């Protein structure tokens, strides 16, 4: 049963990723695109954890943690760039 459920969940997350991509291309302003990129990072993280469960391997958690950290840092860096024009005060 778990196998079917995981395929179903991967499909749902795939639709979510497609919606994020549409917003990334459409987004009328720059903050919209940053928000779409941030959501894309988080959804990719969820997909990687799902892959880890399917392959029964804990190796994927380090990758997921790194993606979480990089996503946060890049979002903050983009926002600071928009706010002040430079990243490090």
């Amino acid at each position, binding site marked *: 049963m778990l196998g079917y459920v995981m395929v179903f969940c991967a499909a749902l*997350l795939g639709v979510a990723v497609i919606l994020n991509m549409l*917003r990334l291309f459409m987004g009328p302003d720059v903050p919209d695109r940053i928000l779409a990129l941030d959501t894309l990072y988080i959804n990719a993280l969820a997909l990687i954890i799902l892959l880890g*469960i399917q392959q029964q391997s804990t190796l994927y958690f380090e990758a997921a943690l790194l993606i979480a950290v990089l996503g946060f840092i890049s979002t903050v860096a983009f926002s600071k760039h928009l706010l002040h024009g430079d990243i490090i005060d």
Partner: protein
Amino acid sequence: MMPFWLELLISFLLIVGSVFALIGAVGLYRLPDFFMRLHGPTKATTLGVGGIILAAMIFFTYHRQEFSGHELLITFFLFITAPVSAHMMARAAMQLKVRLSARTQGRPWEE
């Protein structure tokens, strides 16, 4: 072989998590202005990933026959960072004066 109730619990958590992640993405896609779009991802995705990570924790605790806790770190990290990045994006958007929906009450601050 995994007992049936455990499989049911993991499936439930996985489905709840991915449905919430999808709702966050739908909110990002169809809400009319930037500040409303900010609500979808910051809330729905934290709970979505939280559900999936909880399922992974239960699965690996059973699979390795010992408590597996390092998935919790990702959840903690997301719960701490999601409000911070939302706040930063909101400030950037206020400074750029993005278009607001006509029905918005109140005004953002001038920075």
